[in-house]
């Protein structure tokens, strides 16, 4: 299957449904010890460090936030310097055209604004999210009260659906894990 990835039309996944945070954390670690590669876990709430247990790389969102903050800071300084110092200097009591203390509030607000908007935009783009985007739900209960462990069959070559299901069941999945096909 991996040889013809370019023309692959769909992927097959086996999903195990768990009913408690502790159970899913246990299962994620144990199925990996048993040689399964976990594709993803869907949960109704954030679970700290779950991404680390699955082996996802650390997110670089904070770096994006810092870059946007720097951008906002620089833009504000440039804007105020240009407007008050270069384009239309005003004499106010003989004081400097560009005064650093009075730049502080606007620069701070612009830094926060651009950092927040830029970071959230990065978040949406990196997750392929946006208004009206179609979701693919392996099991709709994963936004209610269930934790869904998804195993990609392509990434676990040599293991049949039956074998994968057995491993998921062994660590507490609900009866009969099922297979889901997702169009490429």
């Amino acid at each position: 299957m991996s040889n013809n990835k370019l023309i692959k039309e769909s992927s097959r996944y086996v999903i195990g449904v768990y009913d408690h945070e502790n159970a899913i954390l246990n299962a994620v670690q144990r199925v990996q010890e048993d040689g399964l590669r976990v594709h993803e876990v869907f949960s109704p709430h954030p679970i700290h460090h779950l991404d680390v247990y699955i082996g996802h790389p650390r997110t670089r969102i904070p770096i994006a936030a810092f870059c946007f903050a720097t951008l906002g800071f620089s833009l504000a300084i440039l804007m105020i310097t240009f407007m008050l110092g270069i384009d239309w200097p005003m004499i106010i009591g003989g004081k400097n055209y560009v005064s650093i203390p009075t730049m502080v509030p606007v620069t701070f607000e612009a830094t926060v604004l651009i950092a927040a908007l830029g970071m959230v935009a990065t978040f949406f783009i990196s997750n392929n999210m946006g208004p009206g985007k179609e979701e693919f739900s392996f099991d709709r209960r994963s936004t209610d009260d269930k934790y869904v462990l998804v195993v990609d069959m392509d990434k676990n070559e040599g293991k049949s659906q039956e074998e994968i299901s057995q491993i998921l069941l062994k660590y507490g999945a609900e009866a009969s894990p099922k297979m889901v096909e997702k169009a490429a």
Partner: protein
Amino acid sequence: MQVTSPIREPLVLNKMTMHNITNDVCKQVEGKPTMPWLICFGISLVLLGLGTISVASTWWYGIGTWGLNKTVGWAWDITNFVWWVGIGHAGTLISAILMLFRQKWRTSINRAAEAMTIFAVLCAGSFILFHMGRPWVAHWALPLPNTYGSLWVNFNSPLVWDVFAISTYLTVSSVFWYVGLIPDLATIRDRAKVSLTDNPLLATDTKEERKAKQEKRRPIGAFMYSIMAFGWEGGAKVWARYEYVSLILAGLSTPLVLSVHTIVSMDFATSVIPGWHTTIFPPYFVAGAIFSGFAMVLTLMLITRVVFKLENYITLEHIELMNKIITLTGSIVGVAYITEFFIAWYSGVEYESYAFINRAFGPYWWAYAAMMLCNVVSPQLFWSRTIRRNLVATFVLSIIVNIGMWFERFVIIVTSLHRDYLPSSWIYFRPTIYDVGDYLFTFGLFFTLFFLFAKFLPVINMAEVKAALNSSDEAARERGVIALSKKAGGEGVKIAAVHNPDKD
């Protein structure tokens, strides 16, 4: 195994499961409007309608309809502006500062408090628009290229700082609020979609629940909430990014929320008017903002709790904790009042001393007395645990605090202006019906938006409450132990030790 002190009260009462939480929060979104909601919404609409007449007159005739005059150039309108901005501080404080302090009790109230923040800031902004007299040129307050010889706004002016502070605050709060809403919107979307298809995955529901869901086909809900949920799937990778985004937004919002009222206070503090020209204003205004904001959150949450039957989520524990913050910030405000008075005398400046003596004993003594009584004396009642946990007393006191905080701004603004340096300019400010009507308009706007929010969006942050449930609720923890011991061969202890939500 993690050990939690039994003294700590659970954040969610009555041994709720995650599915119960989803049902309880979604039912008001999915069901038909209830009679209490209709009554509350109707009253808000009436207020909004009456207020709109007043606002339309103000816009048509100009702000000459107000009671302002040459001596008192700022009065009701700026009082209302500062009051609403202050109220708009609690939401971000709860969701950002309490998040950084790892206060899990904020999870039940942060959503509604954030919504309240956004609506309060909108109300505050509307007074700035009204005060411009010509609101259609409001964009002149922004540094935009223009045809007047590239004349820019003056960045040395605190009023320009205000434009940036308020608009940034509104934008960042709205973004923070919406990002937090997405997982819950996905929950509602999925419930609507499940009801559309004959989905066999409703195993957790009872037969009746399943039947009810499938009978309640909601194609419009499925469509609308699909758009609003942004395609949320809730994978671990996305949650990890989401948590970072929330944390950084909280980190950004914390100085932001403190900066907003600091900058509002500078509108006064950077002037040379006796009574305004004080360095204590920034911390004093911020404490006052949190004080009034929490009072408004309490007023609204006590109503919401009854209207939507959310007693299991907004518990007496939550109310008591908020009352403690009110006592603290109320006392800070009280100390600030006394400090101001002392410094006015200690400065030896005649005009400064007179401004404060005039405040307390001049023609507006009644406003000063109301302020002292409502803001300094009344929150001291919360030292009693019985009163802190009494719903009626909390409701009444929360309204009293907000009345007091309105008087605080009125006292600062009007009493500092009404007696000018020239006794011939002395005047007694009286509001007109349009002053009152415009204030009513913002009440109508605020409550209309709040009740619309409460009907169509989840008022409680389900995802966060569920996360807090597993670590704070005894029953949920027990279920976790059972989930591990029975199904995973009794070897779950290792994982529970690794994953301790209190430490992570």
